[in-house]
């Protein structure tokens, strides 16, 4: 039986992710309790907000040391993905270091934030199972993770960047699967079946 835990650290999109999961008949436990997180079959690490404020809250709750040690499938979303990286330019903050990437601000693009529906391509791995090149996902962000060996989906915003990442049991999406219609639902379903 899947036991889905959602990390509760005051992130903005907790409820939208909950609603999206409820559509899949899954009720997540929203918690910041280390034991409960460790006991879950899947952990979702949501995030909307400012990296500095979010990282301070994770540290205050002692979750900064727990999250990188989780062994079950973990899905970081948006700011959650950025905080799983080594460092972010937003507030010049060190992240949790699961992905050895630096998160950088968009430069020389038409508009910042990159906001709206954009396509996914170069899809890899189980999280992207059943998706097609050209499927749309919903993005809102001003900072991005460059393309690397951990990239499992590309989005192009004048240049290709990481739409999603995977390293071992850690998965992450820069876009919002909980707001990305059918493609997003498929990704959440894929995650839950890991």
């Amino acid at each position, binding site marked *: 039986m899947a036991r889905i835990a959602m990390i509760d650290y005051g992130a903005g999109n907790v*409820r939208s992710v*909950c609603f999206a999961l409820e559509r899949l008949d899954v009720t997540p436990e929203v918690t910041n309790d280390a034991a409960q997180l460790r006991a879950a079959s899947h952990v979702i690490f949501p995030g909307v907000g400012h990296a500095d404020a979010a990282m301070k809250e994770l540290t205050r709750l002692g979750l900064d040391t727990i999250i990188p040690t989780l062994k079950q499938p973990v899905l970081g979303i948006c700011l959650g993905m950025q905080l799983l990286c080594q460092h972010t330019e937003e507030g010049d903050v060190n992240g949790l270091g699961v992905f050895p990437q630096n998160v950088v601000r968009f430069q020389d693009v038409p508009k*910042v934030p990159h906001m*709206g529906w954009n396509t996914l391509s170069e899809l890899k791995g189980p999280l992207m199972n059943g998706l097609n090149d050209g499927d749309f996902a919903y993005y809102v962000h001003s900072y991005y993770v460059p393309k690397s060996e951990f990239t499992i989906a590309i989005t192009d915003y004048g240049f290709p960047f990481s739409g999603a990442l995977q390293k071992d049991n850690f998965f992450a999406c820069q876009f919002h699967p909980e707001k990305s219609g059918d493609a997003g639902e498929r990704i959440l379903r894929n995650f839950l079946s890991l």
Partner: protein
Amino acid sequence: MLESRIIPVLGIMGNGLYKTVRFSDPAYVGDPLNAVHIFNEKGVNELFVMAFRSSLNHEPVPHRLLRELAEEAFFPLGYGGGLNSVADCAHVISYGYEKVSLNSAAFTNPTLVNEVAKELGCSSVVVSLDVRKDVQTGAYRVYTHSGTIDTGLTIEQAARQSVDSGAGELLVHLIDHDGTYQGYDLEAVETIMHHVTVPIIVLGGASGQEDLVRAKNMGIQGIAASSMFVYYGKLRAVLINYPDRAVEI
């Protein structure tokens, strides 16, 4: 490639869905929950909920209704109306909204935009520039409190001030075009388009596909409308509608 977003705007008063003309004469259109439900089925890109006259009438943010709407909405959501503290904005975001839109409070308390951006991230903060063209000078001036108070700022000044404070998006709301079906006044958007680097949403006056296409061709990222998505035909029969995603606008 990033698509332009077609954004229906739902006006609310109390628990009802209303539509105004030039920010006045609110007409009851129906139940906002029902509208959100229909927009779900239509695969809407994004939706804004706006409470009319909240700042003008000192009305509180309709927290309960906003929560109920978010529960129904499987697409990105924004909310504007009567927000005047970081706590208000944080609550709305916590219900599952991606963005909060500030108008009155952004100009009466300019540090608020900055505080909200710091707390919630720039991407979540929209400043609504409610503009009216000054017929004497031809300049666009920004108003607050449902178009009743002149900020004394031109659209350029207000746009610059908002972006410098941390707004991640600007909504150009054309007061005199609201509900009139006379098309967007794209000149107002053009005035600021090349001076700010954040995405812009235009709202007010759209009557049909041609208007959406004109805005898109100008490179506007957010193309919003209210009447055309809640009414059908000249007699304004209430009918929630939305262009098919497959149709190229």
